């Protein structure tokens, strides 16, 4: 058993526990904080797979920016405490059923592919090289330039939309 495997097992347990904690906690603030921890663990998984850029982007964008905005909204609305009891009583059995289907699918795929071990041996080998960032940037701005630009236009449209929606109309106080 090497060090990486031990690290992986510990991190996996933390990731699952924080995910469960997020689902189970009755305080919205604690749920958000569990989610932050979960994102941080996932970032460390990316690091272990030899993808430092994705790991850092995960921390900056998800754990940093987006979750802070979540916290901001929760605090601003004063919605820290969830009401006791279920609001949608049919939701829980349905969710359990769907989760069981998902688990079955994932398990089936996992066991079917269990004998195919190639490709997982050392996933970080090529991206681990010192030029990993350059390689990623080159493929992002050459091979995937169009999707990249389309995404940025999408974000711009969303931004303009928000400004238009929140702007006061003329004559309105």
């Amino acid at each position, binding site marked *: 058993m090497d060090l990486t495997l031990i690290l992986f097992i510990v991190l996996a347990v933390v990731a699952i526990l924080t995910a469960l904690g997020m689902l189970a906690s009755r305080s919205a603030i604690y749920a958000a904080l569990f989610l932050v921890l979960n994102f941080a663990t996932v970032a460390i998984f990316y690091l272990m797979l030899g993808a*430092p850029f994705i790991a*850092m982007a995960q*921390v900056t964008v998800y754990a940093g920016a987006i979750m802070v905005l979540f916290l901001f909204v929760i605090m601003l609305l004063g919605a820290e405490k969830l009401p006791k009891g279920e609001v949608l009583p049919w939701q829980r059995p349905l969710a359990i059923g769907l989760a069981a289907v998902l688990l079955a699918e994932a398990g089936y795929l996992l066991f079917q592919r269990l004998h195919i071990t190639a490709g997982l041996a050392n996933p970080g080998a090529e991206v681990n090289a010192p030029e990993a960032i350059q390689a990623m940037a080159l493929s992002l701005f050459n091979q995937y330039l169009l999707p990249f630009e389309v995404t940025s236009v999408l974000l711009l449209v969303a931004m303009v939309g928000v400004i238009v929606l929140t702007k006061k109309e003329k004559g309105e106080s």
Partner: protein
Amino acid sequence: MTFALLIEWLIKGFVLVLVLLGGFAYLTLYERKALARIQVRIGPNRAGPWGILQPIADAIKLIFKEELIPAKADKLLFILAPVVTLVPALVITAVVPWGSEIMMFGRVITLYIADINVGVLYIMSVASIAVYGVVLAGWSSNNKYAMMGGLRSSAQMISYEMSLGLAFISAIMLAGSMRMLDIVEAQRTLWFVLLQPVGTAIFLIATLAEVNRPPFDMPEAEQELTAGYHVEYSGMKFALLFMAEYDKMIAISAIGATLFFGGFRGPFVDTYPWLGPIYMLLKLVILLFGMIWVRATFPRIRYDRLMAFGWKVMLPLSLAIVFITAAGILLAEQVNPLLIWTVPALSLLAGVFTIAMIDRELRRKEYARA
């Protein structure tokens, strides 16, 4: 990994933390002395000669103070928040190089802790984590003023993080790398502050907002919020929050010195590598004096103006700066290396245009009021 290497890393990490904690103590003295001189006072001079024992006296006072936890506070988060604030302030400096390499005890010792190829991104991600401490401190106190401070800080820090990141990008593009050592090496002949003066100015302004220093100390505005997010904190917990603020100042000055002011580079540093930390310290002291000077000079600006300034002035200007830098580098590569000077020229033009626009807007408002 050998045992000696592990010991070396441990010692270096320990030394860095000690430097930051000792630096915090003497930064408070430095600030009080400098503020006092600016306000024609003498400043602390009772404890020890020239008041140099003042930080120790302050620490002893804070340790012996009673620690209060409000009855309706969220105890776990209330205790955790100062720690969450302090840790990012300490770990963010791990990627800042203090020199190249020196020989000591028959070993080559590198004067940096981590040399990762996503150094600048690491700084961005730790800086974005740093918001949590302040927000949680504000929320867990269960006090409306503290809460307002926490909300303000989260909005403010996210808003200015954009401009900060874009200022980083101009330095990254000029160096062509995200490694801090490469960035320092690229400034061997010319500091980036000369190539990108407006980018440096944006960085310096955005960092003031990131570390909640005056004139952007909205989260702890005394007059409006009595002290903002740390109003309920006392004793050592208050000291931790205070420590985090000053360590963030040191860290952000070290990052600024590395990205725009040549890092540990200076005359003769190639022949005598131990000069590196000394140059770095000098640059730190000068940049920190700038922050203290700003505090002594400018009044706090109003919150809506702070947000308007961040979104309507800083963000468009920094986007323009990124565009100008990219275009200038492309011109220099494709046509003539001398064309790199279009970067500072056009940036200064954009900066002057921005200032003229602000001036015009302020005049218009004054005219409308009168």
